[in-house]
Structure formats: C-alpha cells, structure tokens
C-alpha cells in the first residue's frame, strides 16, 4: 500500500518535470503580458550555453544603416560603460564577490556559471578610454580608478564622480581631462551587501538637478530561500541626498533593479528589473517600469500585481493587496542589465525617442531569451510599441554557444551606442555612418 502511494507520487513528480510548450516572447511584451500558471519543478527548465568568445573578425549584428565594431577589447569582465562630458569613456570592470555555499545547489550553480563564462574575475577597477582623433578607436587607455569593491554604477555630478561599490557609494573629485584618480574616495553612504550579497550589482544615477542619487539594490535571493531577515533594505530603489548622504527607500518589491535612468522629456525615473526564476520558462517576465514613489512592486510575495508566489512564506496578503504591476514587460529570463535613453543618440530616425536595453540573457529558459540589445520606442514619456532588436548575434547560430553577453549600454559623445560585453571582454560601438559627429574629444 505504501509502495503504491510512493509510485503514484513518483509518477506525478516525473510528469511535472516534462518539457513543456514555451510561449513566443512577443506574447509577453508590454503592459499586459500573458502569464501562464506557475509550476514547481524537480529540475527547472534550463539551457546552459557554452562560452566560446568571439572568433577573429566576428562581431555582433546591427540593422541595415548601422555599423558595429569593437571600440576596445581585452577587458576583465566589463559591466558598465559611462561617457564623461569631454568624451572620455569609462569602463567598469567588475564581478560579484565569492558566493557562499549554503546548499548543495549553490555548488552546482557555480559550475553552471563557469561553463557559461559568468564566473570570470572582474578587474575591480575603472578603465578610461579616449578617442583623440575621432576614428572610433581609443588612442589612450589608462587605469582611471583602481582597487574598488565589485563596482557597478557610476555617475558624474559637477566635479564629483560617484562610484557604487557593492557595499557603499564613494565620491571622488574629478578634474575634467584627467586620466587617473589616485586620491581615496569618500564614503557618501553604505549600501546593503554582506552577508551573501546574492544580487551584488548597485546601479546608480542622479536626478536631473543633481541633488539626489538613486541606487538599485537587488534582493539577497531568488525568492527568500536565504530567509526573509537578509532581505532587509533590499529589492528596492534607494534615494540618497547628495549633500548629506541621508537615504530612504523610494520604491520596494523590485527584485533586482539593475539599471536606472531619467526619461529626459518628463524627468521621470525608470528602472529595468530582473524578476524571479524556477517557476517556468515564461515566468516571470523581466520588466521596464517608471519608479513610483512609495510603491511596492510585489517581490517576493507576488508578481505583476497580485499574482501570488507561494514560495515566499509566511505570506503577506496585506502587501499583495498593495502591489502594483510594472509598466512594461520585456518577456521572461532576458536579464536586462543596461539602460540608456536614446534622445541624444545619432543613430537615425528609428531611434529618436526611446530606450536602449542591454539584455544579458540567462540559462533559466530553453530556448534562451535575451542575449541582445533591444530598443523600446517611447511617445509622450511612455513606451509605445514592442521592443525592436538592435544588436544581436551574441549567441552562436545554433543557439547553444555564447560568443558574448551584452551588459551596460551608453551613448558616447558622438551619439553612437556603446555596449559592454562581459563574456567577449569587449566594448562594442554601434554607429551610423554619415551621421554628423560632435567632433573628437578635447582635453
């Protein structure tokens, strides 16, 4: 009798692990994505692409009318690109602190990361690139800031350069034209980090008037599997007063807000957020959203409003009732990491008013999704259509190997699009031949 019950249970669980139909990503674009019922798996759907890097002469693909080439290569896990007012380009080389092994699964996850090329050590520094003659190739390359601690976000306000290390925002005095900062930074404020520090990247931007900084702090788990106590102050966008370092949570329930930017026509703050894994290939869509003051976006208790996730216990129906849906789904497991508005781009009429998003891609879906840079058109300060592919070809033609993974995106001073690639260890530059340029960088 007991054995019959066992066999019945075995059969039930085996069924739930079978491969299933995957929805086309375009059913999950925009404000009303199709959300299938969640599944609890024995082995969640996965495809771990094999990291191969770029062969000689290989480059990502861009639409007709644009051109792409390597701006610079040979980096140590470049994550963020940022353009200074004089045209110098900063490249943040970084990777996460060593992840603790809490469960046997964490050991397996480490092996998966290694295969996919995500485990390479970061430089823990910021490199500076200067293209003096304006030919799209840097003529000067220096180590701008060294000995950082898993840095990610960077923003310049006046003569202060802010760097978001994984555990604090540091400020440095920046003199226009300088190529190296040796003075130690001053801590503006600490940020949530150890223990664990599962989502370690701290995205950073400044308000248009420069008075406040905004920091994205990711959750300390996929969905509270490390306990709710270590989620204190996390999965939130923080607002930091630049003069005093005083900070407060602007919005919460944002699982991993990896990119922040102000929409230039409305002055509103937008974020890209990486949603949770392991409940299906089409759950939960990652998203782009305006960040509303005081709002709760659901994590860990629910997603896209009131879709409850039973994995977070004890449940909080009071918070689920308050949870609001984000503005715009990007489809599931694309892992958006880079965000820049396009208004200053010189890439033609197609990209006049919208946002570029670097989709790093993940291994939590089969077939893979993301691994490209997309453009979401805006009208009147809101998304107005489905995402369009801009930079593709990071996956091999078979969809099983990965040549590179896009991370941070930025516009350079000529209006070209820069893309950090942390598997190819390259910064790519997509430009429009014939576009008027702003001229070479000056000192």
């Amino acid at each position, binding site marked *: 009798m*007991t*054995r019959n*019950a*066992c066999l019945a*249970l*075995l059969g039930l*669980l085996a069924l739930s692990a079978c491969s299933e139909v995957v929805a086309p990503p375009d059913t999950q674009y925009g404000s009303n994505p199709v959300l299938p019922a969640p599944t*609890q*798996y*024995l*082995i969640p759907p996965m495809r771990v692409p094999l990291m191969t890097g770029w062969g000689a002469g290989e480059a990502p693909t861009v639409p007709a009318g644009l051109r792409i080439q390597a701006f610079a290569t040979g980096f140590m896990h470049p994550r963020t690109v940022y353009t200074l007012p004089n045209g110098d380009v900063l490249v943040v080389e970084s990777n996460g602190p060593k992840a603790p092994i*809490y*469960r*046997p*699964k964490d050991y397996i996850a480490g092996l998966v990361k290694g295969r996919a090329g995500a485990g390479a050590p970061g430089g823990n520094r910021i490199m500076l690139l200067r293209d003096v003659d304006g030919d799209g190739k840097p003529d000067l390359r220096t180590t701008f800031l060294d000995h950082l601690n898993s840095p990610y976000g960077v923003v310049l306000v006046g003569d202060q350069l802010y760097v978001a290390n994984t555990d604090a925002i540091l400020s440095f005095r920046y003199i226009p034209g300088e190529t190296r900062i040796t003075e130690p930074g001053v801590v503006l404020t600490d940020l949530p980090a150890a223990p664990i520090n599962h989502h370690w990247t701290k995205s950073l931007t400044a308000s248009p008037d420069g008075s406040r900084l905004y920091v994205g702090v990711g959750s300390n*788990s*996929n*969905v*509270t*599997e*490390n*306990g709710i106590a270590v989620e204190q102050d996390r999965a939130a966008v923080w607002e930091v007063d630049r003069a005093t370092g005083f900070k407060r949570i602007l919005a919460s329930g944002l699982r991993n807000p990896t990119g922040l930017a102000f929409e230039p026509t409305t002055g509103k703050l937008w974020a890209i957020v990486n949603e949770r*894994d*392991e409940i299906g290939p089409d759950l939960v869509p990652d998203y782009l959203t305006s960040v509303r003051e005081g709002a709760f976006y659901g994590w*860990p208790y629910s997603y896209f409003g009131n879709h409850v*996730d*039973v*994995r*977070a*216990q*004890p449940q909080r129906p009071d918070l689920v009732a308050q949870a609001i849906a984000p503005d715009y789904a990007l489809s599931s497991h694309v892992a958006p990491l880079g965000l820049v508005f396009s208004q200053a781009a010189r890439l033609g009429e197609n990209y006049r008013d919208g946002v570029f998003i670097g989709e790093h891609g993940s291994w939590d879906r089969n077939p893979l999704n993301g691994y490209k840079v997309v453009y979401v058109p805006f009208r009147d300060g809101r998304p107005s259509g489905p995402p369009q592919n801009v930079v593709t070809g990071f996956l091999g033609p078979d969809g099983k190997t990965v040549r590179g993974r896009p991370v941070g995106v930025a516009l350079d001073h000529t209006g070209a699009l820069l893309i950090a690639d942390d598997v190819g260890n390259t910064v790519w530059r997509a430009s429009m031949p014939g576009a008027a340029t702003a001229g070479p960088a000056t000192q």
Partner: protein
Amino acid sequence: MTPSTRLFHAPLVASGATLLIAALVTDVLYWRTALTQWENFSIWLITGGLLLAAVAALALLLDLALRRAGRMHWLDFALLTVAALLSVLNAFIHSRDGYTAVVPQGLALSAIVAVLLLAAGWRGWSLCAVRLRSGGTQA
C-alpha cells in the same frame, strides 16, 4: 578462530538512514517555523544520507565478493532501495527555492522515507544474513 558475525554494510546503512530520518524532523521544524535554517539542514541531511547509502551499497558488494554474505533479505532490500530512490527525488525537491522545497511534497517524501527506514531498522539494518565459517548462516 571465531567466525565473523559482522557485515560491512549494515552499520553504514544504519548511519545513512539516521540522517534521512533526521531530515523528517528538520522538515517538520521548517513547516512549523518557516525558518530557512531547517530547510538547509534538511537538504544537507538528505545529501549526507544518500552519500552514505552509496558507500553502503559498495560495502554490500564487498560483503558479497568476500563471501561474507549469506541468504539475501529481499524485503529489507526492497525497503531500503525504495527509500534511497525516493530520497534522490526528495533531494531535487529540496533544491527548490523557498517554501515548496519542503511543503508539501518534500515533507511527505521525508515522512514516507522515515517510515520505510524505521521498518528496515526494526528488522535489523541488514540486507543479508551472515555466512558462518562452518558453512551455515546466522540470521
């Protein structure tokens, strides 16, 4: 010379089973408290129990190869094999994130495994009889 009355595999089966039974206790504690530490305890106990089960299987082969093993106890063999297979399944369930790693399927499997193992323990943790040097067997 006194005949050997001890088999290599039996104490290993008992040790591994102890860890798997303990996982039921930590599962119940997680179910009642939602404290993640108990969930982590459970998956490590199941992993440790399965590793010892693998060593016990090798020890049984050694007992057979050295002709120390007598008549097989097929009921005990069935109880322990089913318990080991369900525990492999349970390890995957316990590797989920959050509540569903334990409740309800993980907890149910841990309970079934504990019952099977306690039955096997009551019967003596042994998959076969000891072959005596005189040529007879001892239960």
